[in-house]
Every structure is written in C-alpha cells, then in structure tokens.
C-alpha cells in the first residue's frame, strides 16, 4: 500500500465538508433504510440527485455513507417493529425483536450498532489489505477475462436466487438486451432506437434503477399499506449490560471476517452473510435454545456480518469495476454518471479518491454509531411517521431525481413504465438485482466479448487461453451447478430424516 496516497486520502476525507456529507449521508441513509421494504439500493437510488454538482470524491463519500446508513437503518425497524428494511436485516428480527418485546429495545439497538461498527471496522482493515493487490491483479485482465468475470458475476447473482433461477435468468437477459439499445460504439450502428433521438444514447440505466427500486418498491408496498401495524416502541437507555457484551463480543469478532469475505464474492451480499453468521453462531453456541428468544449474540453476529459484507462488496466495485450486488450496481451507475470510472486504474490514476473513500468508511462508521446511539429518540420518532406520508415523498424524490438526469419530462414516462414493470416483477417474485446489474454491465460485456473475438480472429479459444480465464469459466459453470448441488444435498438430508423417523417409529 502506498502510504502517501493513504495519508492524502485521509486528509481529503477529514475535510470539514466531507465529514458533513458523511454525517448527512449516514443520517439520510438510516432514515430510508428504516422504512419497511426499502433497502440500501433504494436509498442510494433515491438520493443520487443529491450528489449532482458535487466533487466526485465528495459524491462517492456521500453515496457510501448513504449505503452504510441504510444498512444500519434496516436493522432499526427489524428490532423495533419486526419489519426488516431489506434482506440483510432479516436476521436482525430473529433475536432483535424478541429482545425489544422483553423490554430490551435500547440494549438491542446498542448491540446492533456496536456490532455493525466493529464488523465495519474489521472489513475496512480487510479492504485496505485486499483492494490494491486485487486491483493490480485485475490490471492484467484482457477483454476475454473481463467478459468472463462479468459473466461469472451475473451467473453467481442468478444462481444465488435459489428456487427462481429461470426468473433470475430472464431478468438478466432482459437487462442485457436493454443494454444493447442505442448507438453501437464499435460500428456506429443505431440499434433498437425506433428513430427516437432520446434513445440514441441508450436507455439511461439510472432511470431504470430509480423506476424499479423507488417507484416499483413504493407501488409494491402499497399492497399492504392499509394493513400497516401501528406499534409504538419505548426505547429506554441505549446501552447494553456487561453480561450481554460478554456474550456478544466473540460472535461479533468472528462474524466480521466471515461477512467481509462473503461480501467480496460476486452475487453474495449482506443477506447471505448475516444468515451464515447467524446459523454458525447458533451451531457453536452453548445455549442454542435461546436463539430466537432474544439472545444478544443472535443479534450481534448477523449485524456484524452484514455491515462487513457491505464494505466487502465495495472491493469488486472499486478494484474491477464489477458490482457484486444490486446496491453496488446502483452505485456504479451513479459513479459513471459523475465521471468516475471504478476499476483497476482507479487506484493507479486517482489513488487519492480511492483512499479517501476507504478512510471515509472509518469516519462513516464512527458517525453512524454516534447517530444510531445518540439520536435514537429522533430515529424512533421518524419510524413512527406513517408510511402513508413517507411513500408519496419517496415517489416525488424519484421524479425529481429523474428530472435532474436529463432535464426532460419524457423520462417521467419511462420512470413510470419501469416502476410499474418493477411492481409486476416483485409480485411475480423475480429477483431485481440481475436485471439492474445486467443493464449496467451489459454494454461493457458486449464490447469486451467482441474485442476478445476481434483479437483472436473470431476464435472462441481466446476464452480459454489463460489460466485466469479458465478459472473464471470453471467458476461460472460451478456457480450455475450450485443450485443443483444444493437441491441434491437438501433431498438427501430430507431422505435421511424420513428414514430415521420411520426407523424410530
């Protein structure tokens, strides 16, 4: 690691304006993340316009703060009203809500905040050591390796939507086909623009993102808006007991690295990280029967893991320019729009930007623990604000955000179309991340595919010509076979269980 770049990044992130953005981003992210059904991807998508006109470094710092803020926020609503903000906060309901029901809401919020803080710090340290070597490694990638890496990311994200792989593939294919709309950069041919000048530069993926994640999610939440539970929570002192800390500290320290490594993997994210850490802690616990009844370690472990995963997910985004999750895909879209091109060259050409972000993660985690502990009273009040008031505001923010992209109201119609389409996909249980991810990387994927074929005179051997490409190809195949292997083991376990039951009876 280059020490001077690191220090320069530290000074940038410590600039008063950037600290202010971290605090604002963390706070706004926490609020959106707290809203039931809305997660970090929506938080970043809705708040993208706030970054317009900002210095790219400040913008990326702000977006990262929104992202972590939303991760923190997601678990606030899990603990207090048993409604996770998004998938990665589901595990926080298992023991967080029972703790709140037992009158330990304050303790649960404190454990969750401290666990997230420590998990985040562990992951930032991991980031510092892993990011640059990975970026240097990625510098040696040619078009064939890049194409295969994108293919691996997409197939991994589809394969992880177990039980709905066909839908995942369809969402991915839709994203890829939509990415081909516009002028083909290699030949100048207009593709699928239907003579609409607005489409010559392609479909703006930010509109799709805002449409699907903001409008689509709000429309989806309208399905249950009249059944909204009104649960007022009283939060006492926000701190935990010595006994609770004793039970939580090791699970936090174990889950941080697990979450970080899972976060780095393409496709896997906070949801998987928190579930794996929860089940691991339950398996090794001396009191597994207390899990689900309000065990502090049952809350601490997933909270540490999901925050660490959110930092880990930034590694493939920044070092290779490949987002591994829906939220990082949204961030990539926003960064490209701001003129920043994440990838291996970011660490070489703009090291101060990259290291400013890394340092801002430290500061962001400190800011968030302060926000989440000192301002908990205010956050609880916001959580009491009816969704019927908040959702119309989110829809409006989506419209304003869209307008700031192109200053054209034509995009409002596209926004509504994609919002409505997003609702249908959610209702039919389609995973949204493959669509968004494919739309964003689709253009690059095609260009790399064609460049690779050009360099090999049309021979497909180029995709098996280096050790890296062979490994990437093998991993892609393995990720696609993973659901079949998963199914096989599940069936075998079930068969064993039935066998045991029939023998014992």
């Amino acid at each position, binding site marked *: 690691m280059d020490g001077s770049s690191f220090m320069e990044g530290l000074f940038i992130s410590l600039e008063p304006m950037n600290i202010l953005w971290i605090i604002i981003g963390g706070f706004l992210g926490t609020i959106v993340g707290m809203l039931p059904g809305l997660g970090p991807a929506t938080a970043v998508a809705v708040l993208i316009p706030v970054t317009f006109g900002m210095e790219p470094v400040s913008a990326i710092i702000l977006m990262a703060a929104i992202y972590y803020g939303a991760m923190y926020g997601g678990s606030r609503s899990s603990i207090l009203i048993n409604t996770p903000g998004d998938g990665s906060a589901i595990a926080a309901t298992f023991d967080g809500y029972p703790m709140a029901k037992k009158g330990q809401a304050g303790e649960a919020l404190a454990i969750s905040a401290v666990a997230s803080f420590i998990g985040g710090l562990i992951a930032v340290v991991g980031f510092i050591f892993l990011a640059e070597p990975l970026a240097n490694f990625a510098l040696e990638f040619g078009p064939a390796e890049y194409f295969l890496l994108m293919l691996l990311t997409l197939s991994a994200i589809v394969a992880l939507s177990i039980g709905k792989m*066909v839908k995942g593939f369809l969402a991915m*294919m839709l994203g890829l*086909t939509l990415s081909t709309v516009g002028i083909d950069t290699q030949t100048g041919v207009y593709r699928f623009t239907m003579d609409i000048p607005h489409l010559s530069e392609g479909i703006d993926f930010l509109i799709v993102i805002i449409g699907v994640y903001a409008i689509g999610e709000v429309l989806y939440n309208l399905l249950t*808006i*009249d059944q909204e539970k009104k649960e007022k929570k009283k939060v006492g002192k926000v701190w935990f007991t010595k006994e609770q800390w004793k039970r939580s500290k090791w699970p936090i320290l174990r889950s941080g690295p697990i979450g970080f490594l899972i976060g780095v993997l393409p496709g896997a994210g906070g949801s998987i990280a928190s579930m794996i850490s929860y089940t691991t802690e339950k398996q090794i616990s001396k009191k597994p029967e207390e899990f689900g009844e309000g065990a502090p370690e049952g809350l601490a472990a997933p909270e540490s893991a999901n925050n660490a995963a959110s930092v880990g997910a930034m590694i493939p985004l920044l070092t290779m320019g490949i987002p591994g999750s829906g939220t990082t895909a949204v961030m990539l879209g926003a960064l490209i729009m701001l003129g920043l091109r994440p990838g291996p060259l970011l660490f070489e050409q703009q090291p101060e930007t990259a290291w400013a972000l890394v340092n801002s993660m430290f500061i962001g985690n400190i800011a968030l623990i302060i926000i989440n502990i000192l301002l908990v009273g205010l956050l609880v009040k916001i959580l009491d604000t009816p969704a019927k008031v908040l959702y119309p505001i989110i829809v*409006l923010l989506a419209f304003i955000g869209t*307008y*700031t992209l192109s200053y054209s109201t034509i995009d409002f119609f596209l926004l509504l179309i994609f919002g409505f389409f997003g609702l249908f996909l959610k209702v039919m249980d389609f995973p949204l991340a493959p669509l968004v991810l494919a739309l964003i990387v689709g253009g690059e994927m095609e260009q790399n595919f064609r460049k690779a074929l050009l360099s090999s005179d049309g021979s497909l051997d180029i995709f098996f010509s280096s050790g890296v490409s062979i490994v990437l190809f093998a991993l892609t195949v393995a990720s696609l076979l993973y659901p079949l292997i998963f199914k096989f083991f599940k069936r075998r376990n079930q068969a064993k269980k039935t066998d045991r039951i029939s023998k014992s009876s």
Partner: protein
Amino acid sequence: MKAIKLSVPIFFILFSAVFLIASFNLPKASLGNPNAPIYFPAGLSIIMLIFSIIYLFQELKKLDKENKYIKQMLSGRTPKLIGFTILLGVIYAFVFDRIGFLYSTILYLGGLLFYINGIKKWLVNIIVTVAFSFLSWYAFSVLLGVSLP
C-alpha cells in the same frame, strides 16, 4: 389471477421474439464484420426466448396455486391506489414544464397524500405538501443548483 400470472411469461415471449426479429433487421456495419452489431442481441434474444418458454410451462404447472401478492394487488382499494399513483404521475409529467416545479409538485404531492393518507388527515397532508415542496425546491434549485422550471 390466472391472466396476470400468464401475462408475465407471455410478455417475455413476445418481447424476446420482437427483439429477435428486430436484431436480424438491424443495419449492417460498414466497418469490419457487417454482422458484428447483430450477434450479441440476437444471441440474447434466442436465450431469452428459450427461458421465457420454460417459464411459461412453469407457470402453467402452478396456475391454480394462489399468489398472495396478486391477490393483494387486486383486493380492496389497492388497484385504485396503484392506478391513481401512476395516473397522477402521468399528469405530473404533462404539467411539470407548463405550470412549473413548485405548483405542479404541490398539486402532485397534495393529491397523492390526500388519496393515500385520507381526507381526514387534511392538516398533516397540507403541512407536509407545502413544507416538502418548498424544501425540495430550495434544496435542489438553490443549494444544488439544479435548474427547475
């Protein structure tokens, strides 16, 4: 419910078929391989078509199985809520440039709040509408320098 369940796979089948036909009708490139811009979208359309047909069969198999989300979407005032949100959005798009950001936003947010939150909570609706419209105008137009109509 069955119609909604089938509408999605049929949409995908039609979409991929249209995309496939459009791919083969793309103009040829004057530089390099004339078919270069066609391969990728055509390949994608074929794969999407195959998956769409598999998906259609999957849906046909469980056509009688209840989907609670579709049920929710069609019950109570939900269809009206969704329809109104979209309709108001369309009106917002039409009047945004004509009457300006502030007036159109007050109308849009006010309309949405009154419909979703109910007329009984008129005071909250009015305060939120006016406060949020001015606040967003100030934040975007003045603080962030976004040029709003």
